[in-house]
């Protein structure tokens, strides 16, 4: 008599070797995957990876498929000659699955960026890490990316090792600059916030002008340009190539008053002092008529005689036309013993705090890095274009492998040069280097981005692929031959 366990095992075995299980697993894989691509299209690649491609249950489903195939193959024991194509094809799938698992567990897939003449051995991965430095030590902690629906519900979390508390997470961050009144005589400068009424493109755009940095001191909106400067500052020259533009300057006089100076496209000028008392009362809006032919009015929303800027991050709104750029995370942190020290960190940012005892602590939020056992030096980056256009036709890097010790320029120049092109990677010990991208620059790009890859599953995947293809071709041929033997083809 069978024991209950034996009965149970047999039952499981009979399920595992059944073709019906295979059909069910295959079908559910197909359905899952189509859902994942829709998820990716709606959100982004990282979200699809988080919920499906790198999720535990998905690996369980793939393992079930593998187990099913293995069981079916074993159930045909002892194998006969006619089983060979079947076994080849299915062993191929098993090998590909195993190879992929190896890649997932111990593969490295990152990128390295090098400027011409520089040596680098730092590979950035698509993972994120926090780095804390205080007077005593440097500590790191991995911090995985989470999609928006998880980040939204994030509960503040303490990392005592890193001496910080993570207050909020943002999956895809957009910097937002705020202007705050300040007394810092070094950094502070006048700022105005204005709102454009009756713009030809519709809408009522609202923005800050700040004389503290050239990028903030001038804003162009199609046919008009808005500027701010202190009376003592030199006038910003007209931007070359912008074509004829009307302009409106806000000038902060040496007495601390605010004056506007408007010039129309035809060169007609108009100017006047702005009633700052009315602005403070906030009862009626302060509207400026620049006297242009376009029916545009400018509302002055606020004026800060001395202001500094501070960058916060907000969740980026998904909009059409965004393409599929990788989301950039950000987090808000504070020191554990100083809850008032909240600060935002975007990816690549570093924040400097002073703790309650007055010691400096810096926290950085960076892509995770691994280091190569040698350096890669970019000798030259080369780019060609399709004739007569600026479309790149090809790009490639001439690189040298620099063994551990630092060398002088002459020694570096003497090292052998390897040429990496789009379709010709450079294998070097455990790693392979591929031409992935570059940083666009004028007159020509000089910084290359190589992807760096270490794939322990490669051999299994390739041999599995060969087995699978051979096996399925043989299966196909054997089907045709069987059919021919069984029934002569009807004419």
């Amino acid at each position: 008599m069978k024991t209950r366990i034996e009965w149970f095992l047999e039952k499981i075995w009979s399920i595992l070797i059944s073709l019906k299980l295979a059909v069910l697993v295959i079908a559910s894989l197909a359905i899952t995957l189509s859902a994942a691509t829709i998820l990716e299209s709606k959100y982004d690649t990282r979200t699809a990876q988080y919920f499906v491609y790198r999720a535990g249950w998905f690996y369980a489903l793939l393992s079930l498929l593998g187990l099913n195939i293995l069981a079916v193959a074993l159930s045909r024991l002892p194998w006969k000659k006619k089983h060979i194509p079947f076994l080849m094809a299915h062993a191929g799938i098993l090998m590909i699955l195993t190879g992929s698992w190896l890649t997932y567990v111990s593969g490295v897939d990152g990128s390295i960026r090098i400027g011409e003449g520089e040596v680098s051995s730092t590979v950035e991965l698509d993972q994120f890490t926090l780095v804390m430095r205080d007077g005593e030590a440097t500590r790191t902690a991995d911090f995985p990316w989470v999609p928006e629906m998880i980040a939204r519900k994030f509960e503040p979390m303490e990392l005592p090792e890193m001496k910080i508390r993570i207050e909020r997470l943002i999956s895809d961050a957009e910097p937002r600059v705020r202007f705050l009144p300040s007394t810092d005589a070094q950094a502070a400068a006048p700022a105005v916030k204005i709102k454009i009424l009756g713009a030809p493109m519709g809408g009522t755009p609202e923005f800050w002008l700040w004389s503290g940095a050239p990028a903030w001191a001038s804003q162009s909106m199609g046919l008009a340009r808005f500027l701010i400067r202190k009376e003592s500052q030199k006038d910003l020259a007209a931007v070359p190539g912008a074509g004829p533009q009307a302009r409106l300057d806000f000038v902060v006089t040496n007495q601390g008053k605010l004056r506007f100076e408007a010039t129309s496209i035809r060169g007609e000028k108009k100017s006047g002092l702005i009633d700052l008392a009315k602005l403070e009362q906030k009862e009626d809006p302060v509207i400026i008529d620049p006297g242009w032919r376009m029916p545009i009015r400018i509302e002055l929303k606020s004026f800060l005689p001395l202001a500094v800027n501070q960058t916060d991050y907000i969740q980026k709104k998904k909009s059409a036309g965004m393409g599929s750029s990788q989301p950039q995370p950000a987090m808000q942190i504070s020191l554990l013993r100083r809850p008032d020290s909240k600060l935002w960190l975007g990816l690549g940012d570093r924040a400097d705090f002073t703790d309650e005892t007055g010691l400096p602590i810096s926290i950085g939020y960076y892509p995770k890095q691994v280091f190569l056992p040698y350096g890669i030096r970019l000798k030259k980056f080369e780019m060609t274009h399709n004739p007569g256009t600026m479309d790149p036709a090809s790009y490639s890097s001439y690189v040298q492998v620099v063994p551990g010790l630092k060398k002088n320029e002459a020694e570096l120049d003497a090292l052998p040069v390897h040429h990496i092109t789009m379709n010709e990677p450079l294998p070097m010990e455990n790693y392979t280097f591929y031409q992935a991208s570059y940083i666009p620059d004028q007159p020509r790009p000089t910084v290359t981005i190589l992807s760096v890859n270490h794939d322990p599953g490669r051999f299994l995947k390739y041999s599995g692929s060969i087995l699978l293809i051979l096996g399925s071709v043989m299966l196909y041929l054997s089907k045709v031959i069987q059919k021919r033997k069984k029934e002569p083809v009807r004419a």
Partner: protein
Amino acid sequence: MRSGILILSLSLLSFIVGSGVRAAGALDALPGIRLNDLRLMPTQSGGRLKPFDEFARENLLAITGSRTFGNLDPSETLLSMMVSSKEWSEVKMIRISVPEVNQQLLLDSGRKFFSAAELLASNAFLQYSESIQSNGTAGEQVTDTGVNAVSGKADPRSEELKRVVDRVARFQAIVTGRMWAVTPARDSAGIEKWKTVAEGMMESSPQSQEIFGVLKNYLDRNADGVNQGLARARLAIEGGVQNFDQHKNKILAETFYNRLRPFLQAMIFYLIAGIFWLFAGAHAFPRILSKFLTICAVTMHALGFALRCYVAGRPPVTNMYESIIWVSLGVMVFAVLLFLKNRQNVLMTTATFLAGLSLFAADAAPMVMDPTIRPLVPVLRSNYWLTIHVLTITLSYGAFMLAMGIANVALYWFYEISKKGETRTISERIALLNQLAYRALMFGTVLLAAGTILGGVWADYSWGRFWGWDPKEVWALIALLSYMAVLHGRYTGWVGKFAFPLWTVICFSTVVMAWYGVNFVLGVGLHSYGFSTGGQAFVFGFLLLQTTFCLWVAYHHQKLKKSTPAGQAG
């Protein structure tokens, strides 16, 4: 308010001869003109050397949405535009395909075509074009890219608005001689960059001056002068091209290809052949004729494919238009292979109709499926694996398409059964159709599996990862898995003789998704070089029709099964 280039500019000619002279019938063909020298004149555009004929067609496509406009030869149309810019600016030739754009620009909502003068007189248009140009998009498009080189997902209204601005700017660039490159030259970095007619005039280049002479003669309606001028200009340009011998035959081939329109001819042959195949069983005459027409069609199809390969210097499988051509050729190849073995006319009927309709779809929507031959993006260049991988995968689509066609015929016979009752002939016929569909399916799955894996090999070789769950990869896998489920389902008995054709038809929608949907609907992932927009209505219409047909047949089949004892209706 108007700025820079968008003020209605005068033609190149009018700067020099004045714009007063206007002959009546300035837009008609010039009698006695010989266009051959003009058509074959080499020019540089879109990153490669091409004949003027192709240049003219591409520009007409970009402006009007069709590669020819009116009754004039495309080359002469361009010539005439440069001479009679004022008259042409009043011709309603600039296309607006998205009705919302009409509203936005405060134009007639009922019309699709507007004249440049009309648009340039509209304040709304000027304002939008100003803002688009200050963002630097439309200006680049004029010189570098073309009709639907829009990547990623985008709002169709604003994309179309950009294109309309581009169309007007392109028209302006053509009439002012800033579009047509005639003087071979190199820029300071040593890159070959030809000078346009207008640029050449400033530096009195001989080529520009010859062209200018041609334009003047054309304005004077002096056909002899035009013909002689064209011959001299062609010689002057050809003389300036380095190693012209290397390009000479390609230019001839491309012009021949444009004038022959091989795929259009193949389409017509296929559709007529399809009709004769329908009746090929009964009589000898249609049997012979259908075979003859099919041979003509396939020959024309293959010739066009070969010409395109030769001109582009690569197998044409890098965009939707090219892949449709290859897939429909694949359908024919599989059908002929199966036909040679099984001698079933139904195979050829299905295949010729499928191939004909596919070519029709490719030809009908040049705005969606751009037929222009373009240089490849760097990642796709000179790669053996790429070619093999794409050819294999798309060939499998051909096999699945054939299987889908045959399965539809089988489903039709199931419907017949439900109406007229089951006879032995019909059952045998269905069994045969199922077997043929099964064969095509096996072809397809083996090719798709191999193609997907080859894609992995290519990705590994080129990007350093074998499989990255990229949507295009994933959908190829989904299609493969779906067909695998059907094939394995046959062994479990879940997929019977009715369910098999039904699922074969349904699974084809995964191929449609992998082939069209990823690029046109999802618009994410690494295969972005193939992304585009448009055609949704057509494709969804097809899927909807197909689903309705399946449900309808399934409904009738179920009804029959309930009314007859189990097991009789399958």
